[in-house]
């Protein structure tokens, strides 16, 4: 994803929504995040220019809200439930395991940028705690072993795909 590409998508958004008043800042940021998965510096700069607002203020507003991300999502998104029921069922151990195995950075992305781990307050599936959502699918009653086998499968797929690409 080159910055130029992202910027032109912001342009498209700006064209779709002709109201470029300052009140539109948060809705626009949300929409960019929906489309891009995160807020890039290029997108925020472009939005700042369009809404005639200093870049510092756009960045200030965006960093104030927890909902915004500043790094792109990895190929696979893991939503890890840290709600009360999951906590009681040892979801912290799952979190720590993911942290180690995927070498997670502070932005939630793995060192190889293939995974993004998002901590969620409650996924609403307490009956099968501890639970994660992996690329939109629920996986319940998880243990570290089960989690590893899920991730191993993804690694095998990725490896096979690369092999096929090279051949």
């Amino acid at each position, binding site marked *: 994803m080159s910055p130029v590409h992202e910027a032109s998508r912001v342009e498209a958004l700006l064209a779709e929504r002709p109201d470029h008043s300052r009140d539109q800042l948060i809705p626009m940021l949300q929409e960019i995040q929906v489309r891009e998965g995160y807020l890039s510096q290029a997108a925020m700069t472009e939005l*700042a220019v369009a809404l005639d607002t200093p870049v510092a203020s756009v*960045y*200030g507003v965006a960093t*104030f809200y927890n909902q915004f991300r500043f790094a792109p999502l990895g190929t696979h998104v893991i939503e890890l439930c840290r709600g009360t029921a999951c906590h009681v069922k040892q979801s912290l151990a799952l979190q720590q395991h993911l942290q180690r195995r995927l070498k997670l950075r502070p932005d939630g992305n793995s060192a190889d*940028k293939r995974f993004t781990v998002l901590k969620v307050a409650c996924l609403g599936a307490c009956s099968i705690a501890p639970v994660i959502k992996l690329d939109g699918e629920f996986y319940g009653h998880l243990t570290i072993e089960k989690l590893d086998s899920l991730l191993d499968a993804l690694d095998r797929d990725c*490896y096979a795909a*690369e092999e096929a690409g090279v051949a």
Partner: protein
Amino acid sequence: MNITINGKEIAFEHGDTVLQVAKRAGIRIPHLCSLDWAPSPSASCRLCVVEVEGSPRLQTSCTLQAAEGMKVQTHTPRVMKARRNIVELLVANHPQDCLACDRQGACELAELTREVGVRPRQYAGMKKDQHLDISSPAIYRDPNKCVLCGRCVTMCHQIQGVGAIDFTDRGFRTQVAPGFSAGLNVSGCTYCGQCVRVCPTGALMERSHVSAVVAALSDPNTVVVAQVAPAVPATLDQERTKHEGVPVMLEHLAAALKRVGFTAVFDTGFTADLTIMEEANELVERVKTGGVLPMFTSCSPAWIQYVELHRPDLIPHLSTCKSPQQMAGALIHEIYPKFAGFVAGDGTRGTKRLVVVSLMPCTAKKFEAEDVGDVEYVLTTRELGALWERFGIDFDSFTDRAPLDPPFAEATGAARLFGGTGGVMEAAVRTAATLLGGAAPAGPLPEARGLDGFKCFNVDVNGITLNLGVINGLGRLPSTLPAALSGMHFVEVMSCPGGCSGGGGQPYNSDMTDVKKRIKRIYEADKKAEVKYSHENKSVAELYEEFLGRPLGEVSHHLLHRSYTDKSALTALHGAEADTGAVCAAAEAAA
């Protein structure tokens, strides 16, 4: 209309806040987030709380409008306790390395702690560990010392209209920073220093050159000379607490500077006159030959930075004259060694290193000196105080005088005017009128004076009508540029409200009343000056005769003029992110 504060009846006017009324009556209510300069207080610090009869809650006096019959108490036990609590919390995560802080002695936060009686170590707060920003040549940021009062943000957004910094993040991690937490050098900041001037702590400071100047002064192979901007003596005089009535003159400064080891002290007013000679000629040439109009002044480096960063389309409108500081730097390096009889070099093999130090009311001058060259160090008016301290000079009681040094000693009344908004315009009109064959206005030009944001007027000379404009402060640009760009000939832009007298390097805690007092002194200096026209400065005339040739001539072009660069790419941080492509770690490991 009357309000009662602490049992005393005090008259107020419609629209006054309780804080303002109290201040006028000599009652100090501690406050951090509100600023005399800015219209709308954020009311976020809550230090200014007072008790109002009939209201159960404490009220913020910076937003509370005075009302007939209102009864206010400013220092009850409840109020004092609330304030002390606030300040104790503020300092809980402050680094508290005050003993080695440059703000020491002039720190509002330190004063506040004393004022409200902070008790030691009340809260064991986590200390902040945020990055210092030393990216710019003019200003450094130490977010760890910030108390998040927001004054700088108010100044940068509401007064200067730049918006280079804002609050970012939240909770404990909140800080005031440029976009993307980048450095000030890529933030679109103009280095005007207005944020520094109002910061109550050491979180925003000029990049100090004091130690570097002290080092140069102690080196026997270095010749250190000074140049002094017109606003500096006017400010020192206004700030003076002892010997009132004995005005601080350039000559006092010259004597004190020589006492600490400066070899010569020059008047930047000399090059202000020279600037007028070049700029007035440039204007007349543009008017006569159909050049790009309006022509904008180029003395204010934060304005230059504004154009280069935010409005590069205006570059052809900028006068190509260097600022007086830069003209002086270039001329001193070119002429002074020969004049004083030494060989300039790096200080070895019989040569002497020549160091030019400017005393300026400005932080952006530090950036300008680095950007254009020719001036080694810049000390702000504030840093001058630190220089005196290092050398044990009590400037307040200093009464010695020394003459300024040739060949740059002479300056006219016109040059003095550079220290206030409208001054460059007034000085330029005096000379341009003569150049156009008209009569130079004898007295003051009232249309150019005063603190209005935008002054426009016409001057008729010899059948030519010059449409002139004076823009006072960067914040006025968005609303005034359209008018300035339609049909005007010459427009003065000063970045700081009030011009250099309100500059970003001026003393802390000064308000518009102080700025007015400084400008008044500048007008008095002009009134007293024997010579009032830049073109009648004899030393300037001699310089043209012996060295420069003529205004806009080849030597001038080389020494006194400059070019500008489109720097807009610096503010657009597009593509600054690292490569975001995902790779398969398993595949990589296998390869």
